[in-house]
């Protein structure tokens, strides 16, 4: 397989040969499946039944690694690029502000937990349908004066400090980050599987490091701008003139008035206990505040089997034996009142509209918030659910289902081959009545109306068994005949 990840020209060549770049998982599975069929049919003629199934497994894995090997590499490279693009979107940028907040999180939660859709979130924030990501204060003291508060806000970084030495990436080489490839870092003496694992690990370590560097670059330009703006401000003050001499550079930095307006009347998020500027997002069901950084952490349960009430007298069922179509993922509940389908509403601040879609934050002058509490003329606040910001949840669920389908197909094949080797072996399913394994299988798979890959696979295996049973019988018969004859 000459296809090494990173050798982009080769990959592109491969890409061209593919019929459709949006190659769906199922059609890939079909292709793989065709190959399996041919490999099984091929072996059937030459070997006996048991050998057929046992070696069938081997041929299958070999065949699938042949056909999907290169294409999998391709998709994994695509995935890597997508991950990098996602990580780039998580960088807090000082020129992308909305009403004094940012479009990316400060970093209260770990990097790998930020799996929401960044495009959706950025859109919602710029449209003022979701509170921006504000820089939190660890504490707030009512007694702080205006000057003290402004000084504290001035000292806030764009992003929380990073843990530079994660235990997970200790001893993981990352090589030169400027180079797109890092195959030289992979120990070629390792098995293919180990090499792939190492590749993935190095990728993660490199991405983590890159992410830190991207943010640090941004932090630097943030600091430079701050310094420049301060120098300009001092000059303006010492010469006593107004803004006439000021160059028309947009620093995107907040005025003292804006800093004060933001943080003077903030409150604490009940989940992370950090202090943020108002207004918060509010849960639709019980009107409790939640900061955007905590909101993006709340999501559906990972795909799992339903938690049924277990009868203590029943033997526990292994997850492997359950129907993958039963896998579910419930929408998130409200963290405060447990109402299903957690959603929030947001009313943007009335006394500031700065940054994207508003005035530049460096010309903001303090305004008293208009105290009209009745929202008669206010458009109804839009409702954002946890699913809105993770539109891919359904794909994820289906992916997990088909993964289980594949796994259980493999398990079934092994299971049947075991039963054939040991005819006395009885699984829990067939205790009580004695039938051929073939009959039992058909009862257990007729549950879902549509044939799944699992069922087709089962059918194939059954057919293979039947044919080789015939083969064996014929062989025995002919042997017996030859023994009996003389």
């Amino acid at each position: 397989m000459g296809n090494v990840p990173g050798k982009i020209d080769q990959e592109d060549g491969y890409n061209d040969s593919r019929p459709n770049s949006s190659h769906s998982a199922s059609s890939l599975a079909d292709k793989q499946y065709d190959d399996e069929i041919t490999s099984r049919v091929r072996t059937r003629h030459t070997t006996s039944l048991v050998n057929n199934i046992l070696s069938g497994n081997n041929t299958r894995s070999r065949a699938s690694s042949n056909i999907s090997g290169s294409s999998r590499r391709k998709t994994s490279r695509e995935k890597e690029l997508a991950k990098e693009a996602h990580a780039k979107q998580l960088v807090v940028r000082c020129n992308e502000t909305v009403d004094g907040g940012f479009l990316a999180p400060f970093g209260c939660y770990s990097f790998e937990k930020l799996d929401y859709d960044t495009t959706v979130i950025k859109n919602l924030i710029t449209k003022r349908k979701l509170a921006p990501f504000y820089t939190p204060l660890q504490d707030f003291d009512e007694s702080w004066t205006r000057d003290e508060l402004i000084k504290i806000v001035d000292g806030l970084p764009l992003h929380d400090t990073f843990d530079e030495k994660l235990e997970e990436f200790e001893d993981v080489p990352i090589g030169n980050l400027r180079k797109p490839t890092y195959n030289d870092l992979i120990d070629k003496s390792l098995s293919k599987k180990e090499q792939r694992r190492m590749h993935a690990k190095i990728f993660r370590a490199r991405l983590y490091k890159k992410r830190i560097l991207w943010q640090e670059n941004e932090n630097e330009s943030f600091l430079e701008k701050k310094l420049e703006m301060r120098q300009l401000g001092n000059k303006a003050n010492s010469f006593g003139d107004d803004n006439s001499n000021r160059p028309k550079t947009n620093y995107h930095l907040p005025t003292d008035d804006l800093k004060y307006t933001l943080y003077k009347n903030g409150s604490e998020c009940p989940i992370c206990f950090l202090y943020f500027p108002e207004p918060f997002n509010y849960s639709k069901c019980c009107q409790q505040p939640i900061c955007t950084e905590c909101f993006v952490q709340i999501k559906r349960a990972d795909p799992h089997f339903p938690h049924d009430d277990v009868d203590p007298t029943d033997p526990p069922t292994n997850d492997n034996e359950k129907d993958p179509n039963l896998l579910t993922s419930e929408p998130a509940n409200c963290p405060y009142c447990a109402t299903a389908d957690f959603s929030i509403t947001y009313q943007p601040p009335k006394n500031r509209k700065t940054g994207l879609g508003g005035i530049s934050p460096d010309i903001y002058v303090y305004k008293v918030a208009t105290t009209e509490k009745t929202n008669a003329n206010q458009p109804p606040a839009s409702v954002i659910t946890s699913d809105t910001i993770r539109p891919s949840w359904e794909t994820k669920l289906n992916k997990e289902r088909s993964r289980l389908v594949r796994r259980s197909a493999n398990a079934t094949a092994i299971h049947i081959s075991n039963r054939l080797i040991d005819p006395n072996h009885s699984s829990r399913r067939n205790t009580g009545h004695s039938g051929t394994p073939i009959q039992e299988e058909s009862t257990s798979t007729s549950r879902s109306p549509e044939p799944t890959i699992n069922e087709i696979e089962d059918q194939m295996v059954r057919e293979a068994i039947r044919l080789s049973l015939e083969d064996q019988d014929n062989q025995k018969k002919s042997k017996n005949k030859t023994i009996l004859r003389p």
Partner: protein
Amino acid sequence: MASLPKRIIKETEKLVSDPVPGITAEPHDDNLRYFQVTIEGPEQSPYEDGVFKLELFLPDDYPMEAPKVRFLTKIYHPNIDRLGRICLDVLKTNWSPALQIRTVLLSIQALLASPNPNDPLANDVAEDWIKNEEGAKAKAREWTKLYAKKKPE
């Protein structure tokens, strides 16, 4: 070591400055995510007069993930198994980031007051509890005396 989230610091301070009656929780000196916990058996329960030791650990994803809690003291209870693992909804599927260490420990105390043998973790204890509730409670009282005796102050 990554810095401790503000939430954990604030919760710990509150647990020390304003403790829940009948419950103590102290963080380890060398791991501030690991707590030594004691819970007094609720009055009028078979666990009355007992002091139960537990360990509590806040995983990296806390508060998005539930704390991990385990009984260290042996206890005869249908929802607590031989290893001290606890079957309690708020520690699993019903966990919410709006809950806290203190609310979780209160829930565990409430579980001692009202065992739920229909959703058991220790099957044998649950069966015993359903078939012969008085006998099971007597055994729970006996175990409390044996293993969870209050140390004289």
